[in-house]
């Protein structure tokens, strides 16, 4: 009698495949997609999962200033952020990081966790933090996947009057980074509702939340009392911050919209998961043009000069003429992985972070002999 009979063979094989897939495939592993943040000539970037580095840029690439956590420091080794999806918050002499694991840590300006010298760590949060936190004076706010909205103090991560210590319970999971404008905290949920709260008191502002009809995974305040509310139902709404009502009809995209727009002259430029990039007039909701990247667009683009620069999940950078929507060039970034982190504009360059932890810069200025727009890699990883 064989040890494993034929009846049990499929289950055993499934188990083996399952274990291999969980160990090797890793398609579900959180890795983070926080965009790089610049402060002068220093760039702060999450290279891989929870490896947070500060790099002083120079003409050759950059000098590695510090990395967090330092595995030689026991106190830092205990902090498990798992992955980080939102940008770090710079609050005075603190750098606050909110991890997917639900842990939040405040570092010193030198990137060190030193309890008693301004650093603190909190792990009293229910759920995972996906959208990152938003800073509002001496408090910061964030939501979690367990549908809880938190407002905490910058000073020590402690609770704030008007906001429950275990978070304010909403109806849906919170995946988007909350937005603060005029002392009001706006937050979207994955069940499609948009809420507005008085940051000081915690009171709800609108009589009822705005129903976007699809999951809200991203939220942007675009000025003039308007929120840009994209949904995974492929619709994009403009919502009046005062009334909580839609301004006009929604714009219908081809696929999920999970990105922030880049704005210029009353036009919003954004991409969707079907690979299209749209130029939409905010006043009328009319589409000026559509550009097809042929891969998902998760990252917010940037405008440099008269060129829109967009990165897609295929790892390709697209240079699109702002006026016509015609592609001027595309450059495939070998070894970049997917481009999910928002692009950042600095000094006439678009800075692009791939999921493989490489930082690139792109410029629309013609610098090559072939007359093509160029992407210059700034290799961050491996620097001394």
């Amino acid at each position, binding site marked *: *009698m064989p040890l494993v009979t*034929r009846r049990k063979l*499929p*289950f055993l094989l499934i188990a083996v495949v399952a274990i291999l*897939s969980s160990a090797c495939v890793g398609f*579900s592993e959180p890795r983070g997609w926080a965009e790089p943040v610049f402060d002068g000539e220093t760039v702060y970037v999450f290279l891989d999962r929870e490896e947070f580095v500060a790099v002083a840029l120079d003409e050759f690439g950059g000098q590695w200033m510090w990395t967090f956590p330092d595995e030689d420091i026991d106190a830092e080794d205990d902090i498990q952020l798992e992955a980080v999806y939102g940008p770090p918050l710079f609050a005075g002499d603190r750098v606050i990081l909110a991890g997917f694991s639900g842990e939040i840590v405040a570092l010193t300006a030198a990137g060190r966790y030193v309890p008693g010298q301004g650093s603190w760590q909190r792990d009293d949060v229910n759920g995972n933090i996906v959208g990152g936190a938003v800073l509002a004076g001496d408090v910061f706010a964030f939501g979690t996947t367990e549908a809880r909205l938190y407002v905490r103090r910058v000073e020590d991560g402690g609770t704030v009057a008007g906001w429950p210590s275990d978070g304010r319970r909403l109806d849906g999971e919170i*995946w988007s980074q909350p937005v603060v404008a005029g002392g009001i905290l706006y937050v979207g949920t994955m069940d499609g509702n948009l809420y507005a709260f008085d940051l000081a008191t915690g009171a709800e502002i609108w009589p009822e939340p705005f129903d976007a009809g699809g999951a809200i*995974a991203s939220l942007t305040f675009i000025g003039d009392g308007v929120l840009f509310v994209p949904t995974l139902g492929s619709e994009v709404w403009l919502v009046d911050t005062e009334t909580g009502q839609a301004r006009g009809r929604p714009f219908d995209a081809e696929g999920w919209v*999970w990105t922030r727009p880049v704005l210029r002259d009353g036009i919003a430029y954004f991409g969707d*998961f079907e690979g299209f990039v749209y130029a939409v007039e905010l006043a009328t909701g009319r589409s000026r043009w559509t550009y097809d990247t042929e891969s998902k667009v998760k990252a917010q683009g940037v405008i440099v000069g008269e060129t829109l620069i967009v990165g897609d999940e295929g790892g390709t950078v697209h240079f699109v003429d702002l006026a016509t929507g015609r592609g001027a060039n595309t450059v495939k970034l070998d070894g970049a992985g997917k481009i999910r982190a928002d692009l950042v504009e600095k000094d006439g360059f678009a800075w692009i972070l791939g999921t493989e932890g490489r930082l690139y810069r792109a410029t629309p200025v013609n610098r090559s002999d072939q007359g093509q727009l160029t992407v210059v890699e700034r290799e961050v990883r491996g620097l001394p």
Partner: protein
Amino acid sequence: MIRAVPQRAGLGLVLVGLVALVFVIATYGFTRTFTVGLLDPMINLLVVLNEALWGSFGLAVIAFTIIVRFVTFPLTLRQLQQTRAMQALQPLVQDIQKRFTDPKRRQEEMMKAYRQAGVNPLGCLGPLVLQFPVLIALFYAIRQTLAISPEALDNLSGHLYSWSYIQRAIPLEESFLGMNLAEPNYFIVALVGISTWAQSKTTVTVATDDRARTQQQMMQWMLPIMFMFFSFSFPSGVSLYWVVTSFVSVGFNVVTYGFPALNVPPLVAPPKPPAPVEAAAPVSSEGESRTRSRPSRELRSSAHGTRRSKRKNRRRRA
């Protein structure tokens, strides 16, 4: 001979199917074929079921597993029947093994016995091999649909059909009966153990000697423990699939084998035996010569096969 025609026709169909599959894989690649042909339909069906069943992903997984197991039931039934026929042949197989020491002759005699009984020794592997990609896809579909991280949700978008009914259903509710289906859960781990044990218990195997009986008993406990160990690292949604599919298998086992402990007879009759073919006189390589014709019914008797075979052997020796 009459049975050989449909068997050959079936074999022909399988061959045509295999050639078509190889062509598709060669054209589009294995990953794309697997994804578009199996994984994507399953993921979308899961999402549709989730919407139809009050937004409960747990109910969707249960319904989905039951549907898939019933759709593949003809394959499962064929596999179970082949296994049953193989089990019924064990006494004869052992008899042949005892009487013939020459491996070549032993093999010939065994193949002859299989032929007479209308059993293909690899017959129960065919349906199993066909089911295997389905089961793997099912596993991936549940894991993918749960979207346990932002990256997973991002990946999921590429698998969904562009119907607004499906697109608007995302993300799915992860909680079910107080469990987070995206994370491991002790309750479901316990259920995995119980259901796997029940499945082992209802799987009828013929223990022909003490050693085999001991191994069989050991497996009845080892398998549940092994699967419980696996499910500690799986999302509960995947473990829930495992539990449901195990209980469905228990049902299939009872339908096919019955449940002797409770005097429940099999609900599905075994396949019709082929017309008996006169068995050639088995001659051992050592020169033992016995001429006898074994009735085909005896070859296929499952309930008392071992006992009857021994009794007849004693009679023959006498």
